[in-house]
């Protein structure tokens, strides 16, 4: 990406807007909404590694998100410092992701989905019933927002900026991952697993590692969620939470860098903003999903790009004829 290309400029503008968001958005409520969007965007980006690039649809990712939050809360309440909390929570999440992967990768397609649903339900059952560990239905709270590396995260803008930094690292890591040889291996394993095996690739191990990478970012999102919310309950790991994350990815566009982010923004806007004006916001969200499926089955981001190009070609046929191609 060249700095002066249209994409470079729009990325710079977007970055500037994101950094200055607490100053122009006015209300700290909306700053918090933006923080939530970033947290769920990280979760969706992580999930997209599996759903989009590996072609493995999972309905158990809320469990990984939740494991990080529960593990983080437990470690904080046991009086551990921030580094122990972060490492402990993420290591636990990756370890649980490894167990999930070993079990779920016995199948592909529908088999894989069903195993992840079952694993997610087990996590939910533990959160709900293993009261000595998870405090059951009451959930676990932490008394104060932690102060990693001495950062005061109590104010909404501070937490927003901290989340933004993590979010940018997540986006950067995804961009590098997608363009890497391993990223190409993963997409190859999605499209032609038989061929990939015959070419010398270990398809199972490629998928396993992708699962860990995906789980890691889901865990990061879960930990941020805990810092934001200071509370985690069985609802966090419920099947509906997994479905919501999956909808973010699918609505935004699987296998694209920006799709999951757009999907996360859409869902949070509906949940936190539109719900204040429309009582039946769930109905509207459902209607939006239906419209996306009908008019942009590939998702919001690739669909809008397609419509944009089509619009340009229809309105200014000569412009496109002269420049040859638009964008990319």
């Amino acid at each position, binding site marked *: 990406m060249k700095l002066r290309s249209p994409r470079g400029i729009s990325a710079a503008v977007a970055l500037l807007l994101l950094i200055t968001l607490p100053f122009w958005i006015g209300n700290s409520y909306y700053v918090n909404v933006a923080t939530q969007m970033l947290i769920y965007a990280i979760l969706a980006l992580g999930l997209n590694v599996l759903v989009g690039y590996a072609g493995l649809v999972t309905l158990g990712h809320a469990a990984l998100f939740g494991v990080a939050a529960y593990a983080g809360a437990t470690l904080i309440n046991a009086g551990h410092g921030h580094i122990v909390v972060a490492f402990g929570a993420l290591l636990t999440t990756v370890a649980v992701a490894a167990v999930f992967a070993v079990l779920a990768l016995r199948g592909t397609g529908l088999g894989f989905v069903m195993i992840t649903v079952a694993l997610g339900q087990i996590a939910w059952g533990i959160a709900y019933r293993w009261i000595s560990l998870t405090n059951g239905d009451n959930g676990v709270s932490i008394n104060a927002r932690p102060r990693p590396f001495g950062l005061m995260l109590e104010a909404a803008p501070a937490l927003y900026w901290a989340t933004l930094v993590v979010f940018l690292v997540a986006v950067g890591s995804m961009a590098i991952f997608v363009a890497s040889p391993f990223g*190409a291996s993963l997409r190859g394993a999605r499209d032609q697993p038989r061929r990939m095996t015959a*070419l*010398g690739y270990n398809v199972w191990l490629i998928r396993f590692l992708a699962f860990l990478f995906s789980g890691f970012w889901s865990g990061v999102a879960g930990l941020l969620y805990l810092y934001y919310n200071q509370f985690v309950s069985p609802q966090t790991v419920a099947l509906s939470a997994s479905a919501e994350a999956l909808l973010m990815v699918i609505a935004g566009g699987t296998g694209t860098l920006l799709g999951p982010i757009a999907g996360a923004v859409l869902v949070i806007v509906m949940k936190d903003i539109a719900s204040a004006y429309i009582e039946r916001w769930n109905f509207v969200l459902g209607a939006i999903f239906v419209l996306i499926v009908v008019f942009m089955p590939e998702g919001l981001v690739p669909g809008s790009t397609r419509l944009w190009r089509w619009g340009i070609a229809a309105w200014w046929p000569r412009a496109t004829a002269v420049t040859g191609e638009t964008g990319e």
Partner: protein
Amino acid sequence: MTALEVRELYKSFGGLRVTAAVNLAVEPGERRLIIGPNGAGKTTLFNLITGELRADAGSMTLFGHDLTREPARRRAHLGLARTYQIITLFPGETLLRNVTLSLLGLSPLRWNPLARLAGQTELLSKARAALGRVGLGHLADRPVGQTSYGERRRVEIAMALAQSPKVLLLDEPFAGLSIEERRDVLALINGIPRDVTIVMIEHDMDVALEFAERITVLHFGQVIVEGTRAEVVEHPRTKEVYLGE
């Protein structure tokens, strides 16, 4: 040393015996043709050799190295490459990316999540060279979806050749091609150097006979005739099962 040796290979799908006591010994540099009517078990034999299917009994060696227990992916690293009768490419990708994935399969680079694939100039120029070998250098940046069937057949061959295999298995490389395209592909295959041993399945005898030095005839999973081109063509059993005379 034998390039590819198959001993007493058996495979059944349920009650259907598709490979029965198959023995095969291909010498280094040899051009071997495997023929047989539909359902004779030719592709199954390839799938057993490459490890996509696991044999019920029997053993295989590649230049003396026992393949029988090696997983399919390891066999590629040991020097076995194949093409598919039903074209099996990465449809959304460019020809260059297809061949790059083939090269990457044998390179430790395939595990690297940090490097930029587009920046691997050595790998990419090798991939371009492999496409050039099959006469598709000018289409390197075109997506597979925008190429003709005949071009895709040649991409299949380019992907296999890119891996510099010791033994190359070609599964009906002429299937679905026009007469001119067949001639091109045959010239391409004839141009492969002798340090690559080739085993080819072909349904169409007219083109294939020209290529073969030795021919194996499969029928209901069994080898019924094996020998030089002349021997096999003249053999009464060949005429009976295959030529329908």
